[in-house]
């Protein structure tokens, strides 16, 4: 009985705090995406010749986001019936958008407006603490290009 009560409490706490954290995170992501919209990501491998005078620099961003208790149980149930695991879709979306924001912030900090060839990599972190940790890491890196100082002749 006591165990069931503990489980239900964890479930409720996980649900409430998890959805609050997620709501706040999405709001913050949207806000920062608006602020950083001048930093454009360009998914091509070859830099066009018109940027030949620009200064390249590797920029990266990464984040580890953890699930909450409710999501883990919900995903476990979903595993039984099959189908979309919506709880994890939003988790990974948050992680991706956050990692890309951090990369764009880093580009903006060094004065770049363009990031070429962004590469996303996702890794599950679940082996720690005897398999108790359910989290996802997203890392993204790209080549930022900084405009040459004004007055320099192109080429």
């Amino acid at each position, binding site marked *: 009985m006591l165990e069931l009560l503990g489980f239900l409490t964890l479930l409720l706490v996980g649900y409430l705090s998890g959805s609050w954290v997620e709501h706040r995170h999405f709001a913050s992501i949207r806000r920062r995406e608006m602020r950083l919209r001048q930093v454009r990501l360009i998914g091509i491998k070859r830099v066009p010749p018109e940027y030949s005078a620009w200064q390249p620099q590797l920029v990266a961003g990464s*984040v580890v986001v953890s699930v*909450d208790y409710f999501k883990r149980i919900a995903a476990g149930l979903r595993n039984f019936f099959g189908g979309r695991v919506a709880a994890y879709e939003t988790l990974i979306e948050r992680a991706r958008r956050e990692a890309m924001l951090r990369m764009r912030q880093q580009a903006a900090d060094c004065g770049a407006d363009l990031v*070429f060839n962004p590469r996303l990599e996702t890794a599950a972190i679940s082996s720690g*603490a005897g398999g108790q940790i359910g989290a996802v890491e997203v890392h993204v*890196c790209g080549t930022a*290009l900084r405009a040459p100082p004004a007055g320099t002749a192109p080429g």
Partner: protein
Amino acid sequence: MSSKLIITNVETVPGKTIVKHLGMVSGNTVRSKHVGRDLMAGFKNVFGGELRGYTELLNESREEATARMRQQAAAIGANAVVNVRFSTSSVTVGAAELFVYGTAVVVQ
């Protein structure tokens, strides 16, 4: 010297020509987290949210791996590393390997 090394993850350095390919350079590091961080992560696993300790740990490890790659590239006389890729693999329970590799080149 090594701070002037240009690192990109595209195939060339924009605006410069590669005059010599020196081969692949790489750097790695295997890191494990301490018990305190695992405890914190356990708490966060109930409430949800970012695991800052892990983010920092992985960032530090990537920086260290990159620094080793830079050293290697500088040692063979390169002035740039192109086509850089990162990769992560879990080696044992609780430890991860961060690996970074690219092609060392001389550009003009």
